[in-house]
């Protein structure tokens, strides 16, 4: 958050002016909301395969994702805002992933963790979906098979950057508003 209107300090300050310098600063609404959203992501770990085990290592005490405010894992789509797809999504699982994604409330983000979720991985097979972006829009792709916990944390940091740069009215919602 960049306080965008700190005026130059005058040479003499009254006591109350000096106090108020430390109490408040101004910023844009978007920056404030994005700051609060990115530092309190509530992930929904849609764990299917090996990447889920690496995610379990990420939330454990050694790598500790709660430094980023994201330790509140909620397995209900109504209560979470970040869908982490961890592992291979097969054709049978696809409709379920779509239903979970649809049930989540805006704003929501999707991270495809691992190559299986990003593009099918090395399974070019009859039952494996070649990437979850066939059915849900993905914000961040984290490659790796499985990605190390550092990789997953880097993916979340990239998502935080994306949230910082984004507006608070999301492109999808803007589209919906304009259509009406």
């Amino acid at each position: 958050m960049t306080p965008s209107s700190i005026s130059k300090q005058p040479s003499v300050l009254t006591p109350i002016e000096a106090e108020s310098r430390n109490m408040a600063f101004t910023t844009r609404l978007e920056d404030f909301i994005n700051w609060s959203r990115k530092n309190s992501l509530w992930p929904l770990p849609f764990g299917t395969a090996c990447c889920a085990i690496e995610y379990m290592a990420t939330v454990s005490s050694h790598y500790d994702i709660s430094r980023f405010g994201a330790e509140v894992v909620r397995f209900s789509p109504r209560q979470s805002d970040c869908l982490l797809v961890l592992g291979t999504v097969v054709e049978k699982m696809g409709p379920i992933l779509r239903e979970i994604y649809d049930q989540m409330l805006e704003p929501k983000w999707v991270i495809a963790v691992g190559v299986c979720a990003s593009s099918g991985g090395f399974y070019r097979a009859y039952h494996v979906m070649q990437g979850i972006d066939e059915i849900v829009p993905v914000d961040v792709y984290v490659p790796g098979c499985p990605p190390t916990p550092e990789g997953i944390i880097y993916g979340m940091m990239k998502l935080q950057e994306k949230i910082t740069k984004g507006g608070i009215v999301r492109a999808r919602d803007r589209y919906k508003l304009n259509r009406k």
Partner: protein
Amino acid sequence: MPEIDTNLIENKLPGFLKEFSTEIVSTQDYRGDLTVVLSSGAVRKAIAFLKMHLKFEVLMDVFAMDYSKFEPGTPERFAVIYNLFSLSKKRRVRLKVFLKEENPEVDSVYDLYASANWFEREAWDLFGIQFKGHPHLTRILCHNEFEGHPLRKDYPSDGYQQLRRASPSVGL
């Protein structure tokens, strides 16, 4: 060339040879694994015999094979292999039956061994082998709109079939 090693069978499975002398097609002892090839109608009786009389308590595995691209040719295209294990006698035996290509079917052994239930469903799902008498022969691994039997040799390995509706294939 099919051959029956009578000494081998008599040593490893005493009494089996006398009971099923007409149904055994061949035997094999490759790398220490005993395989007995039977005719497809005798499988149920043979497995019951092995369970009751020779104390093969555990059915480890039931799976199928498609020999269409195998050289030299086998008598039929499909085979179902039963992997039996005797805990008390520490013996293993593999029973193999060859099934014809047009309508591969064999008797189900789900009531002899409870483990056979899902293994046979999987063989049906991936190969299309019909198990006569199985209570619930439906897809277990592939999704329920899947057409074809993917592990057959003529099914392409990347033959995708997307699932349209998320309805469960079993319900209560």
